[in-house]
């Protein structure tokens, strides 16, 4: 079997006496969508931080394509193909939609210390950006200012920016956060179409979306992996029901 794209080995992170990541291991294989779920306070955000590079684990390793990236900074990880979308929207509001994506393409293609050639006329960058915009169904809005987009469209733009970086691993941190039902449905359709493309680690609260999209699901509770497997097995797992689905049912 080939190496997984992302492998987490025995990650451990504590804040004072509070153990928020406790011996977490998981892997994401090429072409699969691997969802990470867990009730509030399970330690998802802390774990994502350690994968993205904003947090250092106390112990354990993060491997991208078999390479140890545990000590690398965010920008280095991005250049190696570990690309993240943000839970809070982080598009450049004053840039056009096209320019937002073209900047991501530019990061991957050639030096950006080109001082005098007008970048707006670099057809290579614009073409690749349009491909990504087409993929997320935002091509018609290419010339709009990103700041004027509706919330769901900004989510689509986030996704296009991520895709334009030709990621090895896509880290999607709550890509549906704040979207309405209709917008969420459209985004789930777009994410489903990614299957077979880049490996995806998906953190999401919307359970319908998770069970519709994921090839495998890992469930986190109190910093620890309590179950991992295909959606059907997770749905039937009594420990998961107790820790998570039960709580969700109570909340309703």
């Amino acid at each position, binding site marked *: 079997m080939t190496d997984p794209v992302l492998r987490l080995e025995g990650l451990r992170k504590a804040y004072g006496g509070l153990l928020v990541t406790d011996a977490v291991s998981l892997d994401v294989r090429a072409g699969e969508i691997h969802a990470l779920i867990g009730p509030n306070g399970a330690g998802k955000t802390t774990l994502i931080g350690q994968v993205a590079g904003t947090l250092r684990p106390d112990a354990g390793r993060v491997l991208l394509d078999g390479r140890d990236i545990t000590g690398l900074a965010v*920008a280095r990880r991005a250049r190696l193909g570990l690309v993240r979308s943000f839970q809070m929207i982080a*598009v450049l509001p004053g*840039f056009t939609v096209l320019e937002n994506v073209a900047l991501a393409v*530019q990061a991957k293609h050639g030096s950006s210390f*080109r*001082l*005098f050639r007008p970048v707006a006329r670099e057809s290579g960058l614009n073409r690749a950006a349009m491909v990504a915009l087409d993929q997320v169904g935002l091509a018609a809005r290419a010339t709009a200012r990103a700041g004027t987009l509706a919330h769901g469209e900004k989510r689509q733009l986030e996704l296009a*920016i991520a895709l334009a970086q030709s990621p090895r691993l896509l880290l999607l941190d709550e890509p549906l956060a704040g979207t309405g039902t209709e917008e969420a449905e459209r985004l789930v359709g777009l994410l489903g179409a990614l299957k077979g493309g880049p490996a995806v680690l998906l953190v999401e609260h919307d359970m319908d979306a998770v069970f519709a999209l994921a090839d495998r699901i890992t469930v986190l509770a109190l910093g620890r992996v309590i179950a991992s497997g295909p959606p059907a097995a997770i749905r039937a797992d009594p420990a998961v029901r107790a820790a998570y689905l039960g709580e969700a049912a109570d909340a309703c």
Partner: protein
Amino acid sequence: MRLALLLFAALAAAPFLGFGAGHQLTLLAHGMILGIAALGLWLLVGGAGLVSLGHAAMLGIGAYAVVALDDLRITEAAVVVPVALLAAGLFALATGAVALRTTGVNFIMITLAFGQMAFFAAGSLALYGGDDGYTLYGRTTLAGGRWLADRLVFHFVCLGLLGLAFLVIHMLLAARFGRVLRAARENQSRTEALGFDPYPYRLLAYVVAGVLAGLAGVLLANSNEFVAPSYLAWQRSGDLLFMVILGGLAGPEGAILGALALVLAEEWLAMLTPHWRLILGPLIVLAALFLPRGLIGIRRHD
């Protein structure tokens, strides 16, 4: 862009439309010279989102390069200009490398501190008159000729260099380099997540701004035929910053418009009353209150 062309056409025609008298040409030259320095500062403030309060230091260093060479009786532009630009650029590189470790208010304070260091250093240059300043033996020469002594020639030299500076800023901004600079202004963490480290881009912008200020210093020394430490004072840095903000951050032409407006307003008020600063102050407050997007924002009500 249309506004920029209009400004350049007006400046080119001015000497032939009743602004040809000596003191009027001197005034316009001052506006254009400070416009060159303000253009560089605009790249930092409007382009990169970095507010510097030490920009006059680089202008003063350019002017003192003219002084140092004048003291050695070297006035040839082919020597003076490269030396002045190099000195200003190196100062920008050294101080920018430190200042750009910070952003926001800390960046303002560090650039102010470097500016004041340069100001006091200039005041201690006894060889060049210390606080009293230094009167040039002669203006910079072009291929041995005293062309710059002619006010009309000097007017068009300033105009040509202003146009060149505008073009350089405009192109930098539209290139890959400028796109990264603008992106880091809008959202630094997003830009980093794409794999860009903003630091080298900002440092190059800081050096370009320094070189343009140095060029303005050479021209200002020539225009006044006199250089004093006040060239480097923080008040002048404040004036330059005000020009940039008065003109507007939406485009580099704002810096040119702001420089001309402030220089001409000062002159006009000074003719009306010796207490002109009492009027200029409130005008600045009104501009800040009612022109949040600057003079170039007036006609853009979209």
